[in-house]
């Protein structure tokens, strides 16, 4: 009676008795268990939903939300200096080319272009680098002081940078420059979010 063996073995499986009659040492595998197991089933989203933010390997890096102060300093200062000198250099090149007089040798023209681009680039680059330096120092300091990870410390640092930069020109221009700085800082944060969202790089 094969049917009875089948039912016997089913009952035996439930009772933990193996095919040879002895006690089963291992559990029978039920291939459908993940359908009802809430811990196994979410595996599919975990596999197929790719993360959009970087996945961190180390706990110390994952909990950070800000750059360290040294990294912030070198980054902001470097960006400021390079962009300032690039813009200033470009403007100086245009000025130098425009100031050329007819009938001049090539050497003279090149010399004038180099001089003007160098001077203008140096001036703007120094100012922009200084701005970046002050801004990064203020931002790291304020963020550490008020334990803030958001945009508030950035905006306040922008205010402070503008005010500090024009401090020697009197309180009114310092206030105006501070307002411009704070606005620029806020807009840069917002612009970065927008760029991350809508620009497909």
């Amino acid at each position, binding site marked *: 009676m094969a049917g009875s063996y089948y039912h016997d073995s089913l009952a035996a499986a439930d009772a933990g008795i193996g095919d040879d009659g002895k006690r089963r040492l291992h559990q029978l595998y039920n291939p459908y268990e993940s359908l009802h197991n809430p811990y196994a089933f979410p595996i599919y989203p975990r596999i197929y939903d790719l993360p959009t933010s970087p996945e961190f390997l*180390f706990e110390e890096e994952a909990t950070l939300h800000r750059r360290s102060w040294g*990294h912030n300093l070198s*980054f902001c200062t*470097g960006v400021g200096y390079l962009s300032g000198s690039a813009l200033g250099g470009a403007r100086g090149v245009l000025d130098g080319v425009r100031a050329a007089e007819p009938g001049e040798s090539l050497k003279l023209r090149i010399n004038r272009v*180099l001089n003007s681009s160098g001077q203008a680039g*140096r001036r703007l*680059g120094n100012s922009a680098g200084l701005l970046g*330096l002050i801004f990064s120092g203020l931002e790291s300091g304020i963020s550490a002081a008020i334990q803030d990870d958001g945009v508030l410390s950035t905006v306040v640092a922008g205010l402070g940078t503008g005010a500090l930069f024009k401090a020697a020109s009197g309180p009114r221009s310092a206030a105006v420059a501070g307002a411009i700085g704070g606005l620029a800082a806020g807009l840069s944060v917002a612009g970065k979010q927008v760029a991350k969202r809508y620009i497909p790089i």
Partner: protein
Amino acid sequence: MGTPETSREPCPDRILDDVGGAFGMGAVGGSAFHFIKGLYNSPNGERVVGGVQAVRMNAPRVGGSFAVWGGLFSTFDCSMVYLRQKEDPWNSILAGAATGGFLQMRQGPGPAARSALFGGILLALIEGAGIMLNRVLSTPQYLPPLEDPNVSALPPNIAATSGFQQMAYQHDSPVSTSSSSSTSSSSSWFGGFFSGGKKQEEIEAKREGSKTEVLESFDTPSTPTPKFEYN
């Protein structure tokens, strides 16, 4: 467990960091120097104002020249690394020479060559000092061979470049990625002076340089490998 990777950035971003770090160093150092100089050279009662004025006039300029030097040096360094496909102190030396020559190029070939020579010698001295410092700092410790030789073969890794310890993370976890050789990649030592000083410096691994020390792991016997000898 394990240390996050906090050594210097990979090469293209390293230039930005070096420019920024150099500008910061020059600006802060120049501020201090010119403030004291302005303080000294001002009439009584106007000292602080005189100092501040001197700083405002001179500090950005000093910062800018530091930044130019650091940026050019870092660019040439990264270019040499890319061209030679090696991480050496030679990259830094050649980069220093190229920077010196480039900055004096407008004065003609003679001054440019002289400046290049000075730059190269200066960098060679700095790199040599860095190598010696690394060797002195990371002296290997010889554990008895009774213990697992593979574990004891790696000398305890001290994040070299002693002056630049930024305790952002726990510093007792030895960097396992670094090689066991005590001659670390000192090509990063001088450049790291600009920007790595702000971050925690780790020894960069695998320096295929001119000088290598005897690796202890090759001297101590490794765990016995199975010998496939039949009959």
